[in-house]
């Protein structure tokens, strides 16, 4: 067996669609994917049900004020807000895992134009996040509201702004997915990528609270996570952006992160 078998059907050219198929295979064939997505799903559905059960069982002992200001959407979407951690970490890993293992060299040898790889990674992960989180968030919403409905403390799907906020929570996670793929491509390392993601989403917002309040209110609404959350909130006041304005800004941040990742991928040695 000295000679290699000649390819029966010759290899065809690299196209964006083929790179997407390849990235789809890669995405599902490492363990971190399945674990992260399982965690994200369990958090998204589990927390709202748990929170609603607790709220429901303590409803009788709540003060009238607490009952009046209770927002039934809060428990419904709490899970998806926690799940962004799992989504964000996976987004970084989708790229940084290739660098830490050396896989990136095989990937870029197959696709030396490079950028199709990044678009495919962001596209595949964004689409999977949407496909998985849409039913999860809907289940979380209807399950939590049906638990809360016995106290007349629930929203119907048709209540003004509810559908937008629930779908918005799904879209928010899709943007987190794309944004963190971009962060992964910029930093290339798992530690650096996850630290940056955590800093932007979980460190920056509380830091704003120690700034003078005029600064805080001037900056906070424009932070990525705060801007993105505008679409999840039922009502907005002068301190937050309008739902789709905020979401648009959040998506713009993701586009910038992805573009920065594209520049790094294209320019730097692999």
């Amino acid at each position: 067996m000295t000679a290699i078998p000649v390819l029966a059907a010759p290899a065809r050219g690299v196209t964006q669609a083929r790179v997407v198929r390849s990235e789809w295979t890669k995405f599902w064939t490492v363990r971190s994917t399945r674990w992260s997505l399982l965690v994200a799903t369990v958090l998204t559905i589990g927390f709202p049900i748990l929170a609603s059960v607790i709220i429901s069982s303590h409803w009788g002992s709540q003060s009238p004020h607490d009952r009046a200001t209770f927002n039934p959407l809060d428990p419904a979407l709490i899970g998806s807000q926690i799940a962004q951690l799992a989504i964000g970490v996976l987004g970084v890993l989708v790229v940084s895992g290739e660098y830490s293992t050396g896989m990136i060299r095989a990937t870029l040898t197959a696709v030396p134009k490079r950028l199709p790889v990044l678009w495919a990674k962001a596209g595949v992960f964004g689409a999977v996040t949407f496909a998985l989180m849409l039913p999860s968030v809907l289940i979380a919403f209807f399950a939590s509201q049906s638990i809360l409905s016995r106290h007349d403390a629930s929203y119907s799907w048709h209540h003004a702004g509810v559908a937008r906020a629930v779908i918005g929570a799904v879209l928010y996670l899709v943007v987190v997915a794309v944004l963190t793929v971009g962060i992964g491509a910029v930093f290339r390392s798992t530690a650096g990528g996850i630290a940056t993601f955590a800093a932007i989403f979980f460190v920056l917002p509380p830091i704003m609270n120690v700034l003078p309040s005029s600064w805080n209110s001037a900056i906070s609404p424009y932070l990525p996570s705060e801007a993105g959350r505008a679409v999840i909130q039922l009502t907005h006041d002068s301190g937050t952006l309008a739902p789709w304005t905020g979401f648009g800004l959040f998506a713009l941040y993701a586009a910038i992160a992805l573009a920065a990742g594209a520049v790094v991928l294209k320019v730097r040695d692999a």
Partner: protein
Amino acid sequence: MIAAHLLTKDYGDKRAVDGLTFEVQPGIVTGFLGPNGSGKSTTMRLVLGLDRPTAGEVTVNGKPYAEHDAPLREVGALLEARSVHTGRSARNHLRALAQTHGIARARVQELIDLVGLHDVAGKRAGKFSLGMGQRLGIATALLGDPATVMLDEPVNGLDPEGIQWIRALLRGLAAEGRTVFVSSHLMSEMSMTADHLIVIGRGRLIADTSVRAFVAAASKDLVRVRTPDASALLEAIARLDGSVRVEPDGTFEVAGVGAEEIGRAAAAQGIVLFELTPHEASLEEAFMEITRGELEYSHEEVVA
């Protein structure tokens, strides 16, 4: 065919590849030879566009690698550093790469069988031994039925049977008319497989020649001499315009003077000789001869 023109790569202050110009022809095995750190792996990464040249250019079949529509059909490469996700199975690794080029799934199984990985193809690549990883890398290189095969130290980590297999594979690939470019820092390994040699040292081209011409040019008649009276013999040989390399065990490797002359000079001065053996430089010695002074890390003690 691979063609490099004044190819240069700097890493910071360090010049890893320095104005390399060469061509690698199809139908033969071309050995890419150089001491450690001479720039072989860097050159191969430059061919694939993984690293960008500081100056100069390198093309594959007339175009930069990245400009081909189906790059894996042009070049199949085994790189020095492992290039596999440790958490993915060998089969899925090959499948994912095949999909970028629309290569059928059957091809993946074919290659797994060819390199002898059928028993472990479903295992995570991170659990592979060095040799298994090397076989997976070779399967990856052959995936696209490439016109050019470029392997960076492919025998690394292979057992004797694997080494035999690689040699046969390389010759077979060349016989099919493919361009075969293989790096090594072992001249002896290259002598078993290569027809042509490109030798570099410190990133620079030292020789671009057929194996036969290389050996003829570099090898001299050498004489091995052992004596208890080293300094007297060194002087005597210096008077005869010979050059001496002192081996670690104290033996002299004398070049430029015949055994008879050395014997006569020693007798004339009463120098005792324990050994006086003429021999031809081996391929390895020819290589060391030609790369002397181009070594990145030299351990040799050279006495003129």
